[in-house]
């Protein structure tokens, strides 16, 4: 807890709309308390812009406690900034120094076109979930919750994967804009649980192939996991690849082909 303030120079990406040309704008952020969060720093800049009669910067944000996955910008070229395991909203200005210049850009990926300024369209992530990221268990059909014991280690591992907040930092950090970390985290969450077995391979095939329609290919750089605010493990990608190969065989078999 301290009461220091910072003066910063921001290089911020401005873009009026999806089809407009973008550019960097320079803005000064003055007297920012170092207890402020990164997004509160942008709030202050926007208040200043409004006072000057200039259109404020659009940036994605909502819960501001690191769980909704709405926020996310490239800060000095890194998704969510330099702090490990931290979403943009939980990055605080005490991690910067007085006089710093900070470059702020939207997620950079072909699958995520810019909507305006720092806001991008991440709907391909929903398309991947829609393709099979669920367990078909219509309301009312469930048996008693304790009827299927799940070893604690297995449940914990599923939870490790389920912790993904769907922010898209993995895609933005990847040199190929691949969606493997996001997709594999959801697959492992569901595929590792007993409830997820009946649809396991159908789900895997559908989600991977939907992912391929939007995102680049994975070449195991590991930048995704490095940028992930929930530190989702790269291991899940290996599990996904294994299940995907298997799915081709299993799904043919299920369809009665030999």
């Amino acid at each position, binding site marked *: *807890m*301290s009461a220091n303030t910072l003066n910063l120079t921001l290089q911020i990406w401005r873009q*009026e709309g999806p089809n407009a040309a973008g550019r960097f704008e320079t803005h000064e952020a003055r007297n920012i*308390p170092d*207890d*402020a*969060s990164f997004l*509160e720093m942008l*709030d*202050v800049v926007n*208040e200043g812009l*409004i006072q000057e009669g*200039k*259109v*404020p910067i*659009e940036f994605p*944000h*909502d*819960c*501001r*406690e690191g*769980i*909704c*996955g*709405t926020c996310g910008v490239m800060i000095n070229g890194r998704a969510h900034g330099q702090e490990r395991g931290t979403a943009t909203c*939980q990055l*605080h200005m*005490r991690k910067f120094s007085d006089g710093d210049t900070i470059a702020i850009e939207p997620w950079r990926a072909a699958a995520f076109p810019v*909507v305006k300024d720092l806001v991008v369209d*991440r*709907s391909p992530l*929903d398309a991947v*979930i*829609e*393709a099979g*990221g*669920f*367990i*078909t*268990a*219509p*309301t*009312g059909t*469930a048996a008693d*919750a*304790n009827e299927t*014991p*799940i*070893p*604690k280690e297995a*449940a914990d591992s*599923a*939870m490790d994967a*389920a*912790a993904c907040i*769907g922010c898209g930092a993995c895609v933005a950090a990847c040199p190929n804009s691949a969606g493997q970390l996001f997709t594999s985290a959801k697959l492992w*969450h*569901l595929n590792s*649980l007993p*409830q997820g077995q009946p649809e396991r391979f159908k789900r895997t095939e559908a989600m991977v192939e939907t992912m391929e329609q939007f995102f680049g290919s994975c070449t195991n750089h590991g930048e995704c996991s490095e940028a992930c605010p929930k530190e989702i493990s790269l291991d899940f990608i290996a599990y996904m690849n294994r299940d995907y190969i298997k799915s081709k065989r299993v799904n043919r078999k299920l369809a009665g082909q030999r």
Partner: protein
Amino acid sequence: MVLDSKVPEGPLADKWDNHKFDVKLVNPANKRKFKVLVVGTGLAGASAAATLGELGYEVEAFTFHDSPRRAHSIAAQGGINGAKNYRNDGDSVYRLFYDTIKGGDYRGREANTYRLAQVSVDIIDQMAAQGVPFAREYGGLLANRSFGGAQVSRTFYARGQTGQQLLLGAYQQMMGQVNAGKVKLHTRMEMLDLVTKDGEAVGIVCRNLLTGEITSHSGHAVVLATGGYGNVYYLSTNAMACNVTAAWRAHRKGAHFANPCYTQIHPTCIPAADEFQSKLTLMSESLRNDGRIWVPRDPDERRAAADIPEADRYYYLEEKYPAFGNLVPRDVASRNAKTVVDQGLGVGPLKNGVYLDFAAAIERDGLDKVWERYSNLMEMYERITGEDPRETPMRIYPAIHYTMGGLWVDYNLMTSIPSLYACGEANFSDHGANRLGASALMQGLADGYFVLPYTIGDSLAGKLGTDPVSTDDPVFQQAEQDVRDRTQTFMSINGTRSPDYFHRELGKLVWNYIGMERDKNGLEKAISEIRALREEFWKDLRVLGNADTLNSSLEKAGRVADFFELAELMARDALDREESCGGHFRSESQTEGGEALRNDDDFAHVSAWAWNDENTPQTKHAEELIFENVELTQRSYK
């Protein structure tokens, strides 16, 4: 006007089963002929949309987020109650019902609350079947904990991310229905008006937040699952975009707004650090299981916490409430924190917090044990404040967290507008004047999964053979025009202040006068000051940019405008309710020991406020609360 709650006859335990038999059913082959609009896709909305889709209805779901998974249900940490009695510690449906009615300070409807406790059991089964990774014991069975001072362990949880995992479960189930073609999902669409025809809800008008396009959507029924209104306080634990607009627009079209003064203040949040603070972060109150709450006895104390000897520390909860100590209910813990801070005993640079100290727990159980229990919360605290709770006590202060008030609904969850339903935090129904911990997730899912899908058939069945009202109908055209005009007004005021400025100033008024403690003078002052600020808003608002692109200022302006009207109604409701109950504490009505003192003779009712017009304040209708099963007692935590 008499409010008909439509609570079924019969013994408490049989009401819901009897009612399910009595409500009209829609033949499976006919369900596809009905279109239901679901606004909001958090726990209540997503579970309702998914279930209605599974049943065979045509569903259109609307969210103003870029994805349904962003809804603020996601931020709930602690857990979800379920009367499973897996711990064999004497829990039952009746006990959960009783705890909820009592916790709500006897201002809830018995039948609704009992039904909530009944279906809580099914929710746990349903979510486990969905693949929600609940915490488990080594034997593979589900783990439970005691939460918020409950005497039994009935809370299920998924690390500190229960809300996230439950929301993802409901969201995924809904996406399955999107995939099946039964739910049509509209993202980035904000409902800006409810459309009624002949007094009945027939559709909504939305603004596409990316293009500014205003569109009409028509259905046989409209379901609002749009959350609570805690963001009226500006600094709250709500997400930045949480708002009352959908519910308020419905209120202006005739839906009664019930008990707006019932707001819940959560005792363990991180205090504001500076004037730019944009929101407050809640930490699960499970922290109070092991943390000791204290302030220095001397208002001029300068020493660091660790250097202050025991004799100079004021463990105010332990001293005042020896039996419950640091585990007193939320409202008691919150009010006492305010008392000591108001006395000048607060800690931190702004003297706006109290200490939550783990030193004793660390000494007793060892650092490893304490860290294992609370590591995620302690890491979060350190990230936000830059202080390590293992070395120096946390600083906490109460913040607004949940709103028990909301749209009035009957037992079927239908509002006072026929064919308009409200689910989850958006309605007022199940928590009375105060909500128990781990019950918000439970209610959202109860409404969406197990209540609404049955009860909605009752009103739909009578509409067989009718088409939804065409969006070319003059009622839609008029509503669209109203929305366009309003948008244009915001764009053209051309004043000097941002919507955020007005929101922050409004928040201060609401917090100071309609916060943890209310009195007659303050509330009267609140009404006149809110009105004055509102007038300034309509004269001096500045919204820059265009209305046909993404424009957060414009969105915010509409939400703040509605918060102004809501804030005034909150003050009037609080003024009218001359008693203390649950989250509503009138300083004129307290026991000698300073506890909330109810007045059951005059106020054992729901206050449902009916909209008149712009210039005439709302009219109050009272729904008497009838208690046939529980005896009304005065709470005591001494």
